[in-house]
């Protein structure tokens, strides 16, 4: 486990509902989240030391789209800020790292994305290497299908297991006002549906979603000053794997295993896990690689299968975990974010409630 110079806590968080289509700008989704977290900590926004956002130009369909998002954060007088072309969870990573230097106290983190204006499958197929994979149209759903097939071939899962993940996710989402999809499904009915990408069916895949999320994190003394129930970030780490699916064992996630070690995941109880399960088979891989047993509640929010605003969805997992801890569903847990096809890149963040 990595030793940390500074204790850092989440002191405020907010998210939009996962919208099937948000009929306004990306900034209009971010701004209420930012305004809410600023109000929760009772600070003047000019007193926030550092701001960092995560978003993706390609989802917005425009180079430099992220520049307009600063309208939602505020940049006058000038601010100290940065941007990652990644999910907001990686903005949280950089914000957390920045606080470890000990010379600033507070960071405003956000993540946002709108999938509804375009075809996210087409956009995400451009994530693959441009010489071999992209011309084949090897989009993330295709690679998720490979992963699912690999699990079945290895005897690690069945289509029924995938359906059970979907049923549980949709049932959990009934308690989540931010979820886009929820309800009581039956495994047998799901298995009777046609494939969209064999062996995946429609609900094994995420809906098209728009959404945003924001949080304020702070160093220990400041955190206690700003908030009565800070949620402590005990560790955060992320790792990547080869881009080439043929060089990977798609039924395992060595990157998750390394990250779990680095954040000291099993140095304490793991009561709750919020995982970026974009395709249902990923939950099987993640549970195994995280060595989760029956003591851990997984995706109490319903997870991305019930609302998947890319670029906010990973940061939203951290928020959902923080909410579960504040609501007493557990004392300690792990949030997971992912990037790239078939869980190529993974981030883990361990949170713990205030003692």
């Amino acid at each position, binding site marked *: 486990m990595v030793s940390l110079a500074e204790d850092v806590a989440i002191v405020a968080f907010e998210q939009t509902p996962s919208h099937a289509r948000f009929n306004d700008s990306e900034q209009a989704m971010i701004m209420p989240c930012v305004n809410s977290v600023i109000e929760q900590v009772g600070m003047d926004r000019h007193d926030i030391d550092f701001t960092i956002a995560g978003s993706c130009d*390609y989802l917005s369909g425009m180079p430099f789209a992220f520049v307009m998002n600063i309208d939602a954060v505020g940049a006058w007088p000038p601010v100290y800020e940065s941007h990652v072309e990644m999910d907001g969870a990686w903005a949280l990573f950089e914000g957390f790292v920045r606080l470890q230097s000990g*010379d600033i106290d507070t960071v405003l983190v956000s993540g946002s994305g709108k999938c509804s204006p375009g075809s996210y499958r087409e956009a995400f197929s451009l994530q693959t290497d441009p010489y071999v994979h992209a011309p084949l149209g090897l989009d993330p759903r295709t690679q998720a299908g490979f992963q699912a097939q690999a699990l079945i071939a290895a005897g690690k899962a069945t289509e029924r297991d995938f359906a059970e993940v979907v049923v549980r996710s949709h049932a959990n989402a009934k308690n989540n006002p931010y979820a886009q999809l929820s309800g009581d499904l039956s495994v047998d009915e799901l298995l009777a549906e046609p494939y969209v990408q064999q062996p995946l069916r429609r609900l094994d895949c995420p809906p098209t979603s728009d959404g945003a999320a924001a949080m304020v994190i702070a160093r220990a003394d400041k955190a206690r000053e700003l908030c009565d129930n800070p949620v402590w970030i005990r560790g955060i780490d992320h790792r990547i794997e080869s881009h080439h699916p043929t060089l990977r064992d798609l039924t395992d996630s060595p990157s998750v295993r390394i990250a779990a070690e680095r954040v000291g995941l099993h140095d304490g109880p793991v009561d709750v896990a919020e995982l970026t399960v974009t395709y249902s088979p990923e939950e099987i891989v993640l549970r195994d690689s995280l060595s989760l047993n029956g003591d851990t509640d997984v995706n109490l929010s319903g997870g991305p299968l019930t609302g998947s605003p890319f670029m906010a969805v990973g940061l939203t997992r951290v928020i959902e975990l923080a909410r579960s801890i504040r609501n007493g569903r557990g004392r300690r847990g792990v949030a997971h974010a992912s990037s790239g*096809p078939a869980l190529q890149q993974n981030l883990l963040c361990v949170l713990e409630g205030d003692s």
Partner: protein
Amino acid sequence: MAPRPCAVLGIGQTKYKRRRDELTLDGLVREAVLRALEDAGATFEDIDAIVIGKAPDALEGVMMPLLSLADALGAVGKPIHRVHTAGSVGASTAISAVNLVESGMYDTVLTVAYEKQSEGNATWALSGGKSGGQGAGGTFAPWIRNYIARSKAPEHIGWMVAVKDRLNALKNEYAHLHLPDISIEKVRESPMLWDPLHFLESCPSSDGAAAMVLGNDDVARKSGRPPAWVISHAKRTEFGQFPGRDTVRPRAGVECSEVLYRKAGITNPREQIDCAELYVPFSWYEPMWLEGHLIAPEGEGWKMTDDGDTELGGSFPVNMSGGVLSSNPIGASGMIRCLEAASQVRGTAGEYQVPGARIAIGHAYGGAAQYYAMWMVSSELNPEL
């Protein structure tokens, strides 16, 4: 806890060129990265984390390219993340990498930035993805005219910068443009692109990558390589448009340099800093940044250019490497400014070395002159000022 000291221990650059057709994106970044590792006496095994930056993905049409470049960058099993802050990104990426070292969480960090502009249409992308857009020159030209009106600078200042940077580039083997017969007359007679900017007062469109290996004080000591200590860094952002905005001397740029100097204890930048690599994509930005970053008093930056102070051998050399006017792989250009500043204080700048340079700054700006990222490097961790 105080930030952990961080030093540049290795530098790598590709040859910058209109087209590097012989290389894939993987090959391009790897050329720079392998040179940086070799310069640091390190291998991929020594690297704890990687920070990559570039301008919009649409320039090459590859979304989130850190994913497809993971293998070429030796990133498998490691943390890698991607910074994007418009034209300032190369410098912001370097600063993000410094943050990783300063945090104490990572001992040795590789940072890389690139652009392969021949794979796309930069002017289209720089116009926000709109066809028939004005491009970067069209955005900046009115502000440059405003600077000239305010400062009453004579029109030959822009031509002088264009010549000086191209002459400097002749000493830099990596520079894209090598124009041995450049002259004031040639610049003046080249086609007018955006009044007052002539063709030869504008940056080229380049393919290229730049990389650095950064390490903490322990790593620096063990490496035995000359360190360039990052003694200060700063970033500032402001809105691109609003009534009353000063686009000639944006407040974010002024405040960015104020923070940079304050953190390093600099009270008189003109005297205490030995040289600077400033992001000058269009000739007039040299005097504008000399003023906008408080190196010259307001209205007097052009006099430094006119007096030859900013030449190699002058009292405050600027863009000794040839600058953005000689090589511009957009996403890498800011990182090149940072690593060229580091190269000066390491004493490794070869033919364009400023003798005895101890303190240097690297700078980049982006968007509608609204994003600023700057760092200050020194041959000593605690230099006497």
